[in-house]
């Protein structure tokens, strides 16, 4: 693991996410290859890439679920390796598919999460999360009986329960119908007003609608990062759609075997 002290001197420090030289190997498979990325505080960053590009693995490492093979991660000013519990307290994580306990009622689940994070004011925190995620009508219902959209909302409510400065959302709109997608997208936009959000998605319109910047991965490597205008300009595709830009950048990365910006 590289020393974070060295990075601090050269890279500065902020309350967002700073990743340097991140590598993850599963046996002989290189899932993430020397990844550097920055998510500025208060920004919404879209994490893009084809299936198997390393998005979920990277997000799991950023949330402390998986240990990196090499590299350093700093979230909200906390070095993830030196102070994992400190970092866990300021990250809200919504894994892909929003895993929940179907047998519990929404309120029971949120109470459990509030105890897990040792919240000082669990009742107030649950109230705020329930209101913010529009769950007031379903708090007494078993999670297993809720629609996919509501389950996603429960996952989001649990993720923001401890008022984290950083939200990491892995495909938050995956599997939802168009109406539910709009609801969840609006919710993410509301949540982005006062926190840093890193979200992975395959829906490129979503990126254009809510993200300030994008990070594009291919084969575990960083292909491009920046705002859409600058990426278009760098690729010489000013008038291209995001789909065309995504395909072009990914194809370049596959053909060159490395980063294009």
């Amino acid at each position: 693991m590289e020393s974070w002290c060295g990075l601090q001197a050269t890279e500065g420090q902020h309350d967002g996410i700073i990743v340097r030289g991140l590598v993850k190997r599963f046996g002989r498979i290189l899932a993430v290859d020397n990844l550097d990325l920055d998510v500025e505080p208060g920004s919404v960053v879209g994490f893009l890439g084809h299936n198997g590009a390393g998005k979920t693995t990277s997000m799991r490492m950023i949330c402390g679920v998986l240990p990196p093979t090499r590299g350093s991660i700093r979230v909200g000013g906390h070095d993830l390796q030196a102070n994992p519990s400190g970092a866990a307290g300021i990250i809200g994580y919504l894994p892909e598919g929003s895993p929940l306990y179907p047998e519990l009622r929404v309120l029971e689940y949120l109470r459990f999460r509030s105890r897990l994070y040792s919240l000082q004011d669990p009742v107030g925190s649950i109230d705020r999360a329930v209101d913010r995620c529009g769950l007031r009508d379903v708090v007494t219902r078993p999670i297993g009986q809720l629609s996919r959209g509501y389950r996603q909302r429960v996952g989001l409510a649990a993720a923001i329960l401890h008022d984290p400065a950083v939200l990491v959302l892995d495909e938050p709109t995956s599997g939802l119908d168009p109406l539910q997608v709009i609801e969840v997208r609006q919710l993410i936009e509301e949540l982005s007003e006062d926190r840093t959000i890193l979200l992975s998605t395959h829906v490129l319109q979503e990126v254009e609608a809510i993200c300030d910047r994008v990070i594009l991965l291919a084969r575990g490597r960083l292909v491009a990062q920046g705002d859409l205008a600058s990426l278009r300009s760098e690729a010489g595709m000013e008038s291209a759609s995001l789909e065309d830009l995504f395909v072009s950048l990914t194809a370049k990365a596959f053909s060159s075997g490395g980063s294009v910006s």
Partner: protein
Amino acid sequence: MRTCSAIAGRDFRSFFLFPSGYVVIALFLLGNSIVFMGDVFVQGQPATMRSIFDFDVVLLLFLCPAVTMRSVCEERRLGTLELIAASPASTTSFIVGKFLSALASLIVILLPTLVLVMLLEVYGQPDYGEIASGYLGLLLVGSMYLSSGILASVVSGSQTIAYLLSVFFFVLLSLGREALPGWIGPDAWSVIKPFDPFLRMQDFTIGLVDSSNVLFFILLTSWFLLASIAVLETERRS
């Protein structure tokens, strides 16, 4: 400690939200009642729960893994283990929380059998010291079964495999203790004999609380829990 109690509380609550929890309680009470009516509640017999406790050691061998088989592999299947890993809860508090929940469930399973003790009180003069010793023994041997069940749930990918692993381990141990003295001879058996949990349980059923027996079960339970923590921690770090 708070995260540990949060995990224990959620697990304990879930135990009663699935039919399997009630089936385990009902089966345990049914088995106990049959033995009680056939072997204990007979005119002229001493007012003792010995045969119940002897039976329960075997019955718990099959029921305790049913309590713990969901504990970790279900979290892994649902994906909620990922949420726990991303939370401030440590692997130790997760496993200890799982164990405390299972132990609380075991106490709930044992509680209805106190009705049988009350019947003994009505129709005879039971020795409460012996009965308390028997229940202590059941809690200790049950803790051993539960902790081994948690380890089985940590290492296996499905509830069924977790159940079978835990049951077969103790069934083989039980069969082995019958056959082993003949195979290895009395001298070698005398060395292994102190490690026989079923033999140690027999002391509790006759009302003998030996501190070495108590320590034996506590150490064995701790070993299974530590092994569970080590395996899960290794998995998280790989």
